[in-house]
């Protein structure tokens, strides 16, 4: 059975397949917990994985939509869904740039009185600390708050969950931060495979595997029909094309066992949404490479920060806010699922024997 989501950690343990050690080493570059999935199907791993049709790459085309246009359109789309299903929207707010941009999209497009009835803010105290002014001004005492630590029990169709996931993938990658620190001079330079190989191999320490990964990202971009112009583009495409799919699924992994049977196609299409997961956003990202051409890390996701600033006028947040991982708050010290198969059946414990793909790039 093909997998929509897999955690590589259990798959790379206690296995007799010779190529698994090499396969495992690509995850030294990112994190062993993030299962990559090339959305152009060029990169073949020892695990039988599949892309869910809703999370495929869009048909390549140009677009005139701005980032703000995409946000406005998406907010209206989700608002309409909430009216149609007669269920509130549960906006997951971490206080970070992505989820704040999501809330701003609703606050800009709908009257506060209606928002109060339709939106619940799914959050935690860490979020309040991360964006205190926004919490005080727009959330505390004004909107209903649901504690994000009850997320495992929110998969019961009583609320439409909306996360700020995938904005990272639109703007580049958090991996760019280290690359920028170590290679400031060539960050915005013309794409050089040698520089990327050298950088990636410092992590992977296996030239065959490094070349395989770097080439896979380049080939996938070529297959899709785009050119990687700058070094930063390689990281973006890796995140946009290879990591996107795992990010789409990961919030489901904390679902409480008594609600596992709820996780089906209807649930994915109606009750769990990543705000930035639309063709409009993806085409905006593909057609606006300038949004990734930054010279300092504080400019990462500049357009999203600018939109927030134009709404809340919080100069300090605009000038100093840096990307900070927030998902760990939800996942840390929590039991999580290891896989989801292409029938949306959850898998508590993964075993490579059950999902082995012999037609893979790692075989010697």
């Amino acid at each position, binding site marked *: 059975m093909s997998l929509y989501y897999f*955690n590589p*950690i259990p798959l790379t343990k206690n296995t007799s397949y010779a190529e698994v050690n090499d396969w495992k080493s690509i995850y030294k570059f990112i*994190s*062993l*917990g*993030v299962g990559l999935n090339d959305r152009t199907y060029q990169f073949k791993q020892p695990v039988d994985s599949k892309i869910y049709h809703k999370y495929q790459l869009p048909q390549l085309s140009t677009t005139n939509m701005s980032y703000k246009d995409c946000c406005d359109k998406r907010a209206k789309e989700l608002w309409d869904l909430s009216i149609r299903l007669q269920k509130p929207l549960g906006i997951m707010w971490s206080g970070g740039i992505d989820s704040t941009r999501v809330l701003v999209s609703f606050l800009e497009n709908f009257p506060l009185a209606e928002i109060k009835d339709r939106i619940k803010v799914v*959050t*935690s*105290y*860490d979020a*309040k600390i991360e964006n205190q002014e926004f*919490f*005080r001004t727009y*959330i*505390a*005492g*004004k909107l209903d*708050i649901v*504690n994000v*630590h*009850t997320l495992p029990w929110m998969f019961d169709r009583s609320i439409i969950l909306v996360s700020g996931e995938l904005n990272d993938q639109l703007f580049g990658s958090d991996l760019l931060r280290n690359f920028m620190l170590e290679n400031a001079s060539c960050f915005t330079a013309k794409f050089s495979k040698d520089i990327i190989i050298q950088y990636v191999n410092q992590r992977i320490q296996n030239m065959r595997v490094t070349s395989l990964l770097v080439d896979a990202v380049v080939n996938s971009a070529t297959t899709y029909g785009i050119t990687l112009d700058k070094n930063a583009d390689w990281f973006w495409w890796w995140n946009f094309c290879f990591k996107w799919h*795992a990010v789409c699924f*990961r919030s489901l*992994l904390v679902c409480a066992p008594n609600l596992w049977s709820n996780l089906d196609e209807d649930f994915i299409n109606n009750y769990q949404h990543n705000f930035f997961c639309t063709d409009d956003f993806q085409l905006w990202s593909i057609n606006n490479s300038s949004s990734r051409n930054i010279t300092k890390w504080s400019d990462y996701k500049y357009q999203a920060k600018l939109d927030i600033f134009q709404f809340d006028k919080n100069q300090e947040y605009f000038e100093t806010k840096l990307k900070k991982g927030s*998902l*760990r708050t939800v*996942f*840390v*010290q*929590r*039991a*999580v699922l290891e896989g989801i198969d292409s029938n949306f059946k959850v898998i508590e414990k993964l075993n490579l024997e059950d999902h082995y793909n012999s037609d893979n790039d790692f075989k010697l």
Partner: protein
Amino acid sequence: MKDVLYIVISYENFCVHTVSRNLVTATALASSSIDCFIQGIFPQSPMHKQITSRDFFYDKVWKSDGKAALTEIDKSQVTDSWLAERDVIRLRQDLFGLWEQWTHNALARVSSTKWTLFNAVAKSELEKCDISNGIFTPLIQEYARVREMEINAAVAELSLKIDTENAIKFRITALAEKYKDKINKIMTRDDLILVRDCMHQDFWGNSTL
């Protein structure tokens, strides 16, 4: 060592298996199927100075008189099975060290107030408020005033803080209990490695998804 030391004593022969400076680790060690109990050795006891590490109870065999005194006895006076049990407890203690650190570190990250009773008192105050009718206790009103916040915003902030910290601490405690049981089933070094790896994944690994 200036703190109270906790020795783990066998019910079989009243000989000492090991010592720990940490009460939670000592009680965890004693909560296995190995029949034993803990006893505190206070700094004023003459034995306290002599016990510099747990090896003190590994190099030689010490017997408790059930009060505060310990007497060294010859190894020939204990059974091989008791010595094997002592080895198992020592092995488990190795991993309980990590268990203690990780539990402590996980809880430390959500300990936000110097006054440890704050959340309990705040929760009780919030329960006395009738928020929909605008009735708030003096403590809650004062909190909002000091924080320079609207009272509804202060209530929302406080509730979120308490619920967040309680939920995380509750979960961490459940995890600690789970691994206390697992560690107390360890019999070999291989068992230890297996449990250690799972414990690492559960404590920290899932946050990198």
